[in-house]
């Protein structure tokens, strides 16, 4: 593997007022590849994403190493972070219904991402935004540019979001459940667009999801998180050889078309998982 884009070692994070840390001792590295982070809700997977962007200033964060290319994310000042966020590292959020500003035009919001980091005229930013909307396969991007978020569908909204986050050619994109708010029918379409762009441009991708099948198909490697810890790290094509009981439980709990119709097994949770070593 080439030099990693992202290197995280023993990341722990506790929200103010919480007794238990939301994330503990999470370590991983990321090259120009697609890494999936899978876990149930509350497992701390989204928190990892937000911690990497340093979006949780009140939280109590510690790590041995947290490095993004040449930036030490642990020690970078807010000012340095402003140059990183949105320019070199960006994040696609879950639900375009909430993640787009409801009273500003979609196009202006996309263009704003560009204008924040590149000195340019309004017209240049607009042209750039329209080109990007085109790249995420929006037909008639000039018209969509003028739309307000409530006037576009969920799938289109998420494509706008992707356009906004890839416009500045970042090295790393964190996708936080990018398709779970969308209709099943458009999920694959949106993921395909994201996947194509990420491959084309050689962007490192961290895909946060609760959907094992989805991650298996779109990622190279998978981290399985449980209760704030990484319990297992696997190659995506080797998921079936998972050894950790939690991962196997998750796999067993997936419904299968054509499988028998007995009740799906319920996950057994062993308190020992909270302390045991990571399988890898």
């Amino acid at each position: 593997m080439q030099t990693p884009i992202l290197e995280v070692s023993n990341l722990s994070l506790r929200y103010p007022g919480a007794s238990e840390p939301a994330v503990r001792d999470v370590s991983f590295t990321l090259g120009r590849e697609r890494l999936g982070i899978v876990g149930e809700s509350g497992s701390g997977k989204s928190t990892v994403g937000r911690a990497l962007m340093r979006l949780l200033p009140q939280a109590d964060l510690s790590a041995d190493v947290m490095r993004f290319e040449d930036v030490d994310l642990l020690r970078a000042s807010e000012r340095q972070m402003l140059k990183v966020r949105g320019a070199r590292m960006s994040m696609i959020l879950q639900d375009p219904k909430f993640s787009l500003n409801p009273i500003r035009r979609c196009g202006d919001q996309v263009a704003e991402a560009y204008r924040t980091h590149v000195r340019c005229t309004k017209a240049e930013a607009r042209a750039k935004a329209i080109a990007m909307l085109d790249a995420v396969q929006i037909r008639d991007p000039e018209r969509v540019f003028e739309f307000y978020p409530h006037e576009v569908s969920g799938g289109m909204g998420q494509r706008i979001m992707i356009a906004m986050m890839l416009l500045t050619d970042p090295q790393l994109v964190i996708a936080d459940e990018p398709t779970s708010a969308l209709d099943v029918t458009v999920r694959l379409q949106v993921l395909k667009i994201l996947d194509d762009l990420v491959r084309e441009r050689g962007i490192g991708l961290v895909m946060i999801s609760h959907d094992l099948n989805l991650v298996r198909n779109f990622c190279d490697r998978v981290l399985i998180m449980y209760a704030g810890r990484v319990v297992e790290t696997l190659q995506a094509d080797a998921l079936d050889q998972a050894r950790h009981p939690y991962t196997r439980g998750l796999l067993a709990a997936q419904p299968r078309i054509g499988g028998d119709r007995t009740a799906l097994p319920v996950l057994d949770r062993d308190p020992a998982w909270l302390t045991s070593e990571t399988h890898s």
Partner: protein
Amino acid sequence: MTFDRRRQLTTIAGQCGSIFVTLFGLLILTFVIGRIMPTDPVRAIVGEDATREVYENVYRQLGLDRPVWEQFFMYLRDVVTLDFGTSIRTGQPVLQDIIHVLPATIELATFAIIVGAGVGIPLGVLAAVHKDRWQDHVIRVFSLMGHSMPIFWTGMIALLVFYAGLGWVGGSGRMSQFYIGLVPERTNFLLIDSALAGEWDVFFSALNHIILPASLLGYSSSAYITRMTRSFMLDQINQEYITTARVKGLSQRQTIWRHAFGNIRVQLVTIVALAYGALLEGAVLIETVFAWPGFGQYLTSNLLIGDMNAVMTCVLIVGVIFIALNILSDLLYRIFDPRTR
């Protein structure tokens, strides 16, 4: 499209209907207070020692010998034809009196709302950003203070300190005695009139006089504006699109002012319009203290001599202004929010 249009028309019609009903109710209320209550309107006009004949004459003139419902229709007719009778005190038609004094109050209230919004909105934003930290607590006490002070008293103390003591501002009235009658009355807005006439001495004297009452009035209304701004901002700050803005690389300040604040502007306009209406209330008291020849003083001086006709007209006009401000804020909301278009 046509269905939408039709539905829009129905809502508009429904709103017009409800405005009409409210106005009608207002009239009933002012009529009831003005005519049925124990004060004797005839006595107020003819005085205590009028002969029985004069008394009965006026009694009949006012239509008080007719049944109540007939009196109410007479009242309605008068209102519709904008005939509000004559003021006992000034001998002028009440409506003309009110039109004459209203600009002074509007000038005061406008100046005050600028102060109130100018203080209240930034403080509300600041309190929301620093929720539950010391800034929030200080702002809360400061603004509740403004909401708790008896404004007539604060006015007197402020006069004592800033006018009598320090001499920083002008005293009571709209300008120095010295300048009264110097500026031709065009709009009756003194600041505008004096500027139009190029009388800059008068202009500055007026400014000097308005600043204290307007600031106090503004401070008292800023409590409401601060509280609402804070709660609107808190709603926005927790929204996901704020995270989006941060992810894009906008700084905390840019995010707050460009995105969060941008999105509450519409709500704020509504709040400021309502606060403007509430200022009229404070104006009644503060005008008494500052001898401000406006609507509030007109109302209270008629009140004290028991001229119910003038008083009820004032009350009716305040009610109409309130309703108008409500409609206006509703309209502004519709115009500015893309989601309601």
